[in-house]
């Protein structure tokens, strides 16, 4: 997994790259936008970690500008700006996620992994969350090479939750993803699907992975053992 870290403070850039490398990513560093352009021309990256205030321009403008003409990998913006509006401005401008400085490498790595699980340019055929694997081609799930039997709808639900592992997926998002306009959605159809999926995960010796946030949605999470 190759990343480009664009950050003007060279010590910070080196430390972030080092931290990410220790978590299994390959990292290149660009100290300004010109270097970032050069790096993008020379290599294919899976994700970009982008600082905003760079000596030769603004990260958001650069990203928005490049998005017009190039196929771009997902980008995470590092913002040191005010706590309120800037985050949203960044997401509107085409960033896929943001982290607020001072950033924790663990959090950054988790966000990058979540980003790479999303359907995108270089989709991986197998999604993994802990011991649970999902093959997007055969639409089947397995735990330690033992297949977990799932209905089509349960497989869709599991894929959705796995792609956003560690994040709460809202109920209406699940409803929209699982049921088309013509499908009659009974009020507790999602609950029923979730409880079936939870039972199957329990049977596959993966208990407590599927969490309910009552009134909001559901979250699939790897349990640190």
């Amino acid at each position: 997994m190759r990343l480009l870290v664009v950050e003007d403070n060279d010590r910070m850039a080196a430390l972030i790259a080092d931290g990410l490398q220790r978590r299994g990513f390959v990292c290149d560093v660009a100290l300004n936008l010109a270097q970032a352009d050069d790096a993008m021309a020379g290599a294919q990256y899976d994700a970009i970690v982008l600082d905003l205030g760079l000596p030769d321009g603004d990260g958001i403008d650069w990203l928005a500008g490049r998005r017009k003409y190039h196929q771009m990998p997902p980008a995470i913006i590092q913002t040191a700006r005010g706590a309120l509006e800037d985050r949203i401005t960044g997401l509107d401008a085409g960033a896929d996620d943001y982290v607020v400085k001072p950033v924790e490498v663990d959090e950054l790595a988790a966000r990058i992994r979540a980003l790479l699980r999303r359907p995108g340019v270089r989709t991986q055929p197998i999604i993994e969350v802990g011991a649970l694997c999902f093959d997007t081609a055969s639409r089947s799930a397995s735990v330690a090479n033992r297949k977990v039997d799932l209905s089509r709808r349960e497989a869709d639900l599991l894929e959705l939750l796995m792609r956003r592992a560690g994040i709460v997926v809202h109920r209406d998002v699940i409803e929209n993803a699982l049921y088309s306009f013509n499908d009659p959605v009974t009020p507790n159809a999602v609950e029923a699907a979730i409880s079936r999926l939870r039972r199957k995960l329990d049977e596959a010796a993966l208990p407590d992975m599927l969490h309910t946030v009552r009134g909001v949605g559901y979250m699939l999470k790897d349990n640190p053992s």
Partner: protein
Amino acid sequence: MTQRRSVSRRLRRGLGIIGLIGTVLLLAAVAFFYSFTFTHLDPQAAMMRAIKEMMEHVALPLIVLLVPVTIMVLRVIRQAFVPLAEAAAEIEAARGHERGFRIDASQMPAEAVPFTEAVNDLLTRLDESAMRQEAFAADVAHELRTPLALLSLELDRLDHDDAVRLKTDVAAMRRLIDQLMLLAQIDADAAAQIAPEPTSLADVASDVVGAIAPGIIAEGKMISLDTDEPAPIVNVRREAVAAALRNLIENATRVTPTGGTIQVRVGPGAILAVRDEGPGLTPDRLRDLVQRHRRADHASKTGAGLGLAIVERIMAAHGGRLTTDPATRELALRFPEP
């Protein structure tokens, strides 16, 4: 002198003295002239005659003149002070959104205008001074982020038991800085008078609870959201309200034991409420906590007292209130009904 000097009282006293001196002087003058006119009468009759004349021509005109003058003057004075009383009421009503407040000088009598303008100038200077302080606090918080980020990243490289503890401390500092930045942002928005927008409290609550839930679940606690239909729509600044709710939930999470549930409720009415499994907070204690410098527990490294002070500030900026109900262990954000 304990009695405050009142203009009306001084005027009454002045008019009284003028009346008294005038009466005495006029009486003396009249008596002097009558003493020549009534020489043909015996002293007894002359005295009676003089008293009668004086009543008719001195006392009566004086009373006729002085009483209406006194009434008129007191009336004028009372009316002249009405704009002052109104300005006082306006100033009192501006409690909670003092920033940018000025006294309306257009209704003031000319004599009070210099004073009003001086006070307005003072308010301008206070606003500017507060803005400089806030900008400074925001700058400090901003500048602290880079060294803190470096420290945090260096700690990440250390493979030592102490590193975990140190990382917790750095995380607490980071949280505090976030809170300071948020506070600066609220003040800056208040100064810029950013317009609120119609916002569904249910949407805000759903977003905030969804975003914060992973951390709460990781701590072995649970969170739930109940929405009362129809979901209330209020005119607010969405991000500020989200920050307020986030702070309340973080506060609730801190006092809720492992295995416990934090319950967030939307409505009925324009209310966002957070119930925890802590000991509950009395209104007095809440008032103490929101006074920014009187912190609940000074050992708190997470900026808890600051958090509630920020919530209070956000609610005040929206014309709402932060309330507590110790019986139900619930803190509520109450917005003005649209």
